[in-house]
């Protein structure tokens, strides 16, 4: 028998989400109301940029009249992060049309021409750090069971669909972040030549306090081991190996498919998890993004890690000379 004792029907975080969307909707309604006194509003669009938790609201409007005297339209709905006005024809922002205030901004109406259509772009910060987690259920594969092709799944679904439906239309959620830990440690191990490891071990032992006779033996072993030449010295080779974990290099081994797209990658969990500094990674953290909206409340995709190509690249670093 399945245990379904603790099922929650979409109530988790709903209060928070409804509160935030009420604030978001109130802001846009108030702006519309203030501007409609002097302008004809032609269109509205709202998106939420998830990584920065930004509400982006755009209005297209046409001025009804010529403002002869200096005249300002004040919009005091809290601090705005960014605002600009652009004529739809040139799309070039009119910088002196906006003055920032502590609790909002004002539009200098004498900078606007009658009959011209303008776009007003506004950005407000959604300050609640739990906003996206309360709105979107995100899951990714922690590990793949396959030894061959490494295919990690990623999935997103909206917890609360109805809140995206607003009076002016639908709110879009953009660039929702997902990070997948791509396991790489075994691929490194498999491609490091045994003799290279033995040589490093000898060097380490030579730096430790040892007797003269042992030192002699180790030195003769090192001379023997140095017969096997690589394309660089030990530290250079290790640096080249570390360079593979840089985003610009590692991204070539990643392919993102379906509803997601690649954003970035960084070194993931360290092999020595007790150490407070990076040494050798157990995985690479690959960040992908997707969008959700009222029409598309779910997204699924795949992250393909091209482990054969990665192993081949390591092989090139340790190629005998």
């Amino acid at each position, binding site marked *: 028998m399945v245990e379904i004792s603790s099922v929650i029907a979409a109530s988790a975080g709903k209060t928070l989400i409804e509160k935030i969307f009420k604030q978001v909707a109130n802001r846009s309604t108030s702006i519309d109301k203030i501007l409609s006194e002097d302008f004809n509003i032609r269109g509205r669009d709202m998106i939420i940029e998830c990584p920065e938790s930004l509400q982006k609201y755009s209005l297209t409007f046409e001025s009804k009249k010529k403002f002869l005297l200096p005249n300002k339209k004040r919009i005091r709905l809290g601090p705005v992060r960014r605002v600009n006005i652009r004529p739809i024809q040139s799309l070039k922002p009119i910088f002196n049309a906006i003055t920032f205030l502590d609790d909002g901004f004002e539009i200098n109406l004498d900078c606007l021409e009658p009959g011209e259509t303008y776009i007003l772009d506004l950005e407000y910060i959604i300050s609640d750090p739990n906003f996206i987690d309360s709105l979107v259920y995100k899951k990714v594969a922690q*590990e793949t069971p396959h030894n061959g092709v490494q295919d990690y799944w990623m999935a997103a679904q909206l917890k609360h669909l109805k809140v995206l439906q607003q009076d002016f239309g639908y709110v879009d959620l953009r660039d929702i972040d997902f990070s997948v830990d791509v396991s790489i440690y075994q691929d490194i191990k498999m491609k490091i030549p045994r003799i290279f490891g033995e040589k490093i071990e000898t060097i380490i032992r030579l730096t430790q306090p040892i007797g003269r006779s042992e030192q002699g033996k180790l030195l003769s072993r090192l001379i023997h081991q140095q017969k096997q030449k690589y394309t660089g010295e030990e530290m250079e080779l290790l640096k080249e190996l570390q360079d593979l974990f840089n985003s610009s290099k590692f991204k070539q081994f990643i392919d993102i498919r379906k509803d997601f797209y690649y954003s970035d990658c960084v070194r993931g969990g360290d092999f020595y998890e007790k150490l407070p500094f990076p040494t050798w990674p157990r995985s690479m953290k690959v960040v992908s993004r997707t969008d959700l909206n009222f029409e598309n409340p779910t997204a699924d995709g795949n992250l393909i890690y091209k482990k054969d190509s990665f192993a081949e690249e390591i092989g090139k670093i340790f190629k005998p000379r």
Partner: protein
Amino acid sequence: MEIHEKIYVPEYSIQGEDIPLSITWDKSKPITISVSFSENIEIKEIYNIDDSEFEINGNIIYINKFEINGYLGLAMQTKSQNRSTIDDEIIVRINYKGEEKTIIKKIKLFRPDIKILYVPEVINIMKIGDKLDIQNKIVIKNCGKGTGLIKLKAKESSELELVDLGGIEEFTKKVIGDFVERMKKLKERYPQYSDLMDEFVKTREDNTQFDNNDTIKNVVSRITKAFEANREFMDDFISILYISYMSNLSIIIPLESFIKYLKSINIGRIVMSNPISVLKITPSYRTLNAELTLTDLAYNTYEPIELANIKINSNIDCNVPIYSLFKFMNDLEDS
């Protein structure tokens, strides 16, 4: 039945992890849905319905109405099972105007399955020339498809103890000391993260903290959230960590860490989670009384594996890296 349904269930998951299920269909078509699960799965949350709009009967959930027609989301949790790999399925039945359509989605649930194949009564550690010769190792194999992170822990009753020694350990202490000093200014600048920074240092200083995966998970998750909320804090935090690291770095550290890294990794999906630990040996017969603790990449913990008392026989005083006490089998060696 033309309702253009799209059903998503991932093809696999580590046992004990959460998995999603989503169904979308033509918004203009009113349908009812039932979803059947096996005993390996629990439902956690249902999205886009009200509390009164679903019914549970045994291992089937029936949903008759949706807040907005055209979408249903489920968050489910898989359970850890005795069998390390299970081929499971989720059955979705969609009813539209009295006509029923059945869709079966398959999912593989897996986990690591660490087995001790051989525990020697005596392990002989002898110095021959300038090399340590270790005879009779503990033989271990991962029979599951998930990566197992193992950690050898000596019990209180053990005559031999495990310690962290060597250049890396000394280096770690210096880095942490430097980091704590530099962190004072950071704490003044970001008082809201002061406690979090203290907890971070504590997890790095105190070995026992790492026996508790929930603590690591919690601190890591809170730091990640703090980084997401405040990029400036993230940059400053990483910067002082990097400076502490670089100012203590000597050439031997990267070499030593690399060698231990290589030696602790095993092809059969087994990783030692305390690679810098060593067993302190004296020239005598001493008993090692230990257990192996096990976690996976999703931080699920498993029952520890008891190792029978092992006599360690040696002719020298030395520190033996713990990975050298094990022989790791993989499928290739087995066949």
